[in-house]
């Protein structure tokens, strides 16, 4: 192991005089407490490293020891259901109240291993040699992507520790690889795949405004920008709870400790709507809260995507929620500042854009090395200063994502959730995803989606006009348009994450709600054409039911949908036949 001695130290950054070879991005151990660090620059006889822990007490002369390996994290079956720090070390158990440098817990745990390969078999990189019997997503053990060889020995079925060798491979060059159930992988190096595939199906989120208006594909990338308090975290958590991924990697990057506590408090008690299993079983939480060391905040995003790719390589669909990518960018800026690099826009280093691109590029639907179809979907929250989307992190992110969910302060202040502004947000994979909805039995998805967006756009235009001439002066059709747009907002787009009935909405229920609301839009237009006034239409009692549709139409209740459908027909019909009895 190469050695160096600290020469200068300030904040999380140090310079050391080297005595032996080091590499950029090599993991190092620093000082007597063996703090974890990473080489970020080499300059003649000196190296510059960032340290992932509190540097209090470090001093010149303290040793820096190279690991010979790039900064890597231990991947393995012990990750699921856990909360870990930005470098995948388990956070200490509850009884340790304060997170002092070095107080990380033990990962430990034993797993039931079933061999899937035989002695003498040749295994390619990424091939499966075992599986783990446990509740939750199917976990398999694979040959690291940079290793292959012939099985010299493999253990029998049984309980093993995560670090026990379970399989021994002899590579072509004669090297012996002792494989435990998991393996180490460098965080900054994307894990290889056979092939990248184009998007095909949506990642179903259970949030109507997303699935119906601004879907994200499996293997897609979405950004969620918004000022403070507009609902980024609640939405990210809702997606983590209800989306149809097999594994969730949730990274709290520079955000609140209480939010991590909340996830830990809530998830174990909630069930995955598809499998009925506790949500925690499919979740990995990576926490680097705002008061934890800044450099580890920078690494935590890479750690998270590496974990996501690892589960992807088992043939799973993985969703990565990153809250917030802006804090990661700020960590980059802070370290760059300490290195005295030339600042670019808003003080961010010039390489900000390429780092963002590299990160989002790691989301994809792929054919894995083992030949399976799998995906990593990234949902990144962005926290623009003063909610201004023209700032560097938001504007660069926008270039690399395909779904853009813009949160809006005015909607949030009216407590209209999710506060996504439908006129600013977009999704680029709609054409492809329409086919999926067709297969699901909703051939009208695309048309309905288009109609809602048009209505919402007209609403904005008409409201602007009404501001000049007065609402009463608008022609009847336009007044009806306003009524219908308002109805779609209230009855369809509004969805509270805290409502036990409405926090999740299956695609079937979304289709049913949409059909019902569109039925009202069509029938009311006919009623108007037949001579009824918009006021009379606005007073039919069923409107209250439709405005509260999210609360009133539960999952799997086609009867209720039918009842409301006939109520729409009847009540609007009664206006037509001159029946005045519903006007109060």
């Amino acid at each position: 192991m190469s050695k160096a001695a600290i020469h200068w130290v300030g904040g999380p950054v140090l310079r050391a005089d080297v005595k032996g070879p080091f590499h950029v991005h090599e993991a190092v151990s620093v000082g007597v407490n063996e703090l974890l660090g990473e080489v970020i620059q080499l300059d003649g006889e000196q190296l510059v490293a960032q340290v992932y822990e509190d540097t209090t007490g470090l001093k010149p002369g303290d040793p820096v020891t190279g690991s010979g390996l790039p900064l890597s994290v231990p991947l393995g079956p012990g990750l699921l259901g856990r909360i870990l720090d930005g470098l995948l070390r388990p956070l200490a158990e509850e009884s340790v109240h304060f997170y002092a440098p070095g107080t990380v817990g033990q990962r430990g745990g034993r797993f039931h291993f079933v061999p899937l390969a035989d002695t003498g078999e040749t295994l390619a990189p990424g091939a499966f040699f075992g599986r783990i019997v446990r509740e939750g997503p199917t976990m398999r053990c694979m040959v690291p992507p940079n290793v292959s060889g012939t099985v010299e020995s493999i253990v029998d079925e049984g309980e093993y520790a995560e670090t026990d060798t379970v399989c021994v491979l002899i590579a072509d060059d004669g090297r012996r690889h002792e494989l435990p159930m998991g393996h180490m992988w460098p965080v900054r190096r994307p894990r290889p795949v056979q092939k990248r595939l184009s998007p095909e199906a949506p990642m179903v989120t259970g949030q109507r405004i997303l699935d119906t208006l601004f879907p994200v594909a499996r293997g897609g990338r979405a950004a969620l920008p918004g000022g403070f308090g507009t609902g980024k975290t609640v939405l990210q958590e809702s997606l983590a709870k209800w989306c149809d991924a097999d594994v969730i990697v949730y990274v709290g990057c520079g955000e609140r400790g209480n939010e991590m506590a909340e996830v830990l408090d809530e998830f174990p008690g909630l069930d995955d709507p598809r499998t009925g299993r506790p949500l925690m079983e499919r979740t990995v939480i990576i926490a680097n809260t705002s008061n934890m060391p800044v450099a580890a905040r920078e690494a935590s995003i890479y750690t998270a995507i590496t974990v996501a790719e690892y589960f992807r390589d088992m043939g799973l669909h993985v969703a990565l929620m990153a809250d917030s990518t802006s804090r990661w960018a700020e960590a980059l800026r802070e370290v760059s500042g300490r290195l005295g690099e030339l600042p670019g826009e808003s003080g961010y280093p010039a390489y900000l854009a390429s780092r963002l691109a590299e990160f989002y590029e790691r989301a994809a639907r792929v054919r894995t090395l083992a030949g399976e179809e799998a995906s990593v979907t990234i949902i990144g929250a962005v926290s623009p200063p003063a909610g201004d989307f023209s700032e560097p992190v938001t504007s660069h992110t926008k270039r690399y994502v395909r779904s853009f969910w813009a949160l809006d302060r005015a909607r949030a202040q009216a407590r209209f959730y999710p506060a996504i502004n439908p006129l600013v947000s977009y999704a680029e994979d709609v054409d492809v995803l329409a086919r999926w909805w067709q297969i699901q039995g909703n051939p009208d998805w695309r048309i309905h989606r288009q109609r809602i967006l048009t209505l919402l756009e007209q609403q904005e235009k008409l409201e602007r006009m009404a501001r000049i001439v007065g609402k009463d002066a608008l022609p009847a059709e336009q007044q009806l348009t306003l009524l219908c747009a308002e109805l779609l907002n209230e009855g369809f787009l509004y969805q509270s994450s805290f409502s036990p009935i409405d926090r999740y909405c299956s695609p079937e229920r979304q289709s049913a709600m949409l059909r019902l609301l569109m039925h009202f839009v069509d029938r009311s237009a006919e009623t108007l054409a037949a001579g009824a006034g918009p006021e009379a239409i606005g007073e039919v009692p069923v409107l209250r039911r439709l405005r509260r549709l999210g609360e009133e139409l539960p999952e799997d209740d086609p009867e209720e949908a039918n009842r409301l459908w006939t109520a729409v027909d009847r009540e609007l019909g009664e206006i037509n036949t001159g029946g005045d009895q519903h006007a109060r």
Partner: protein
Amino acid sequence: MRGDLTLTGAVRRIEGPLLYVKRSASVGLNEAVQIIDSEQRQRVGRIAALDEDKMIIEVLESTTGLGLGDTLIRLRAEPLVFPVGPGLLGRVFDSVGRPVDGGPPVPAERRMRIDGLAINPTARALPRDFIETSVSTIDLMNSLVRGQKLPLFSCGGLPHDRMATEIAQRARLRGGEAGEFAIVFVGIGVPHDTAEAFRTAMESSGALEHTVMFLNRADEPSTQRLLTPRFALTAAEYLAFTEGRHVLVILTDMTNYCEALREVSASHGEIPSRKGYPGYMYSDLATLYERAGCIKGLAGTVTQLPILTMPGDDIGHPIPDLTGYITEGQIVLARDLDRKGVYPPVAVLPSLSRLMDNGTGEGYTHKDHPNLAHQLFAAYARATRVRVLASVMGMEGLSDTDKRYLKFGDVFEDELVKQAGPRTLEESMEIGWRLLRVLPEAELSRLSDAQIERYIRQEAELA
């Protein structure tokens, strides 16, 4: 621990708050030092950066009067600590934790790092205990819970100090026993009268013996201003997590703290970020605000009520903006309400309590509380939109419904926001239901049929 070590004649250069010192002994980053001048006056400092033969000491007080030759540096071989112990309550300290009330020093039972340690996220208990502040716009609309950090975003000249004082006097848990409580008042660069007014108020309500005060005067150097909240929060943590008390920390004015941070950063020659504030201001503020919370298995809690004045009344200014990204909501005060004579002048729409959902509703406050609040928010938001409409084209073009919204907006401010004295949550809720009766029933889509029946129809009949 190594013993203290004293260096003489080692200072090479003094530049703003920084001393460039020849390093002849082994010291570590961030460790505390004492700087002793020719008149034996002691100042506090810490090691900001060091290499093999130099170190940079940040003097955390004024450098006035320091010389090169006659300054002594005493190395403490540990980070800055605050010796705390029983008997903190009722005392008054200066910026750096020295008693200024003429009393004896506090017995040092524990020497705690003033920077604190991050609370282990797995050890955090979710804050859920509703605190009744007796302010309707907080209790009903933006509820505060124990262990929350909820700042007041104010503007110069608004009655934020009065509000904070009243909250400190009245805050209580509903029903159950209140436990031991304590109040930590942290005056950061505020005028003497502000601190004195607070002290008198606490005295008159008999809470002074539960109060600790930390006072940083407006004329003290900025480096010192950065320490005051750290000493105070260390005391708060001791009171909460060692003595088991429920501690409410009032920090005023955090804008002065941020200005000091900007000044110190500039003196270090750092590259500024937005509006000259350092790029790490978010992380720095987080190290203060994240010290609020509840811990599993420990009796006490730390609740923070920071106050800041928004420069230029602009909520987008980096100080309120970064604060809002860290704290669990914000209570925003508005000048126009104040001008209209509304006290407390809380702008309800931009205010938010992120922990409200944890601490209200069935089993916490009242099962209909959350829906009532949501409906009031939706209606008041609509009312403010109609107001804009009406201001453009007058009342004539408004529909009947819109006119009723306009009315709702006015009574909401006059009867719910404005209050002459304290109110219980029940009283606030009662006003809320009454105001909603101004609107057509069909508009109340956040309320269930049962809620409409019970609170809108039946109550209307009774009235």
